[in-house]
């Protein structure tokens, strides 16, 4: 089948696989009743709180809802800026 897909210039990923992936994500949100706006707000507040304690990379911060084994989890991926330690020389 693969050969044919290639022969006819198809994408490697079949459209049904894309459909499934997209559905999974959408449904996770639907089921958890979490809107994208809500996630965005959550993200901003997280940034505020965490920034109090450590410096984080705002632009790389990701908050998402995922399906794990038996439950829906909120995943926050928060890259922390590693501070280059600069010893002050007096």
């Amino acid at each position, binding site marked *: 089948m693969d050969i*044919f897909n290639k022969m006819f210039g198809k994408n490697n990923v*079949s459209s049904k696989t894309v459909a*499934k992936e997209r559905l999974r994500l959408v449904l996770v949100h639907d089921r958890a009743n979490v809107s994208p706006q809500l996630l965005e707000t959550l993200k901003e507040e997280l940034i505020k709180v965490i920034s109090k304690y450590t410096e984080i990379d705002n632009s790389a911060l990701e908050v998402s809802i995922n399906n794990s084994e038996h439950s829906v989890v909120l995943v926050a991926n928060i890259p922390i800026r590693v501070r280059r330690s600069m010893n002050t020389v007096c």
Partner: protein
Amino acid sequence: MGEVIVVTSGKGGVGKTTTTANLGTALATLGYKVVLVDTDIGLRNLDVVMGLENRIVYDIVDVVEGVCKIKQALIKDKRYGSLYLLPAAQTKDKTAINSEQMKQLCGELKKDFDYVLIDCPAGIEQGFKNAIAGADKAIIVATPEVSSVRDADRIIGLLEAAEMDSPKLVINRLRPDMVKRGDMMDIDDMIEILAIDLLGVVPEDETIVISTNRGEPAVTDKNSKAGEAYRNIARRITGENVPLMNLTIENGFFQKLKKLIGLRDS
């Protein structure tokens, strides 16, 4: 005491009415006493699919408003003596009846019928609430498309909230050729995502359109693939164990080509 089964989907146009008409007719051919209830007030269609549109005198709104008795509003099918239709009103809207009235109506109907099949309107508003109000069980119709599956999922959630017995899935308009080339979700994909029991699979089939044109459900056509699928589903509803129909297609262009050049099917 009979059973009230609502046929619902969330998304419109996925085959609720087609499914209701065909399952009802198939159950009647199996010897059961069946009544089809159209709750799509304002957009009724079950009457035309059944070919009974010119016999309507009273409708469901007349019944709940007490304008007539249930028996007066029931239309006897022209082919099967044990099959009846309770039509929706066309010149009113969904708010013409309420859930409590539906519950009562269903309660009355199941005293007299083995199966009460309810054709639910699209959406999740009053019409949907009415349709499920008196139902004991639910059949979810979904096509293998993202929007349909998503809406089906929403409906399943709402049915759970309404404490309805675990709904069963009917996959409609499946195209084996598209599944084969990976451009349509297959049966397993859908069950995996929706996580409910499968009641049956109905292929995309032009005999559905033809039979609808004629006002004769496809199950009455011995040569209709979709009709056969619906007959199988009807038997499963009655508790029989019927294996899934073989929907794989042979003799497509690619298949022939592959055979010719000796490639195995993946």
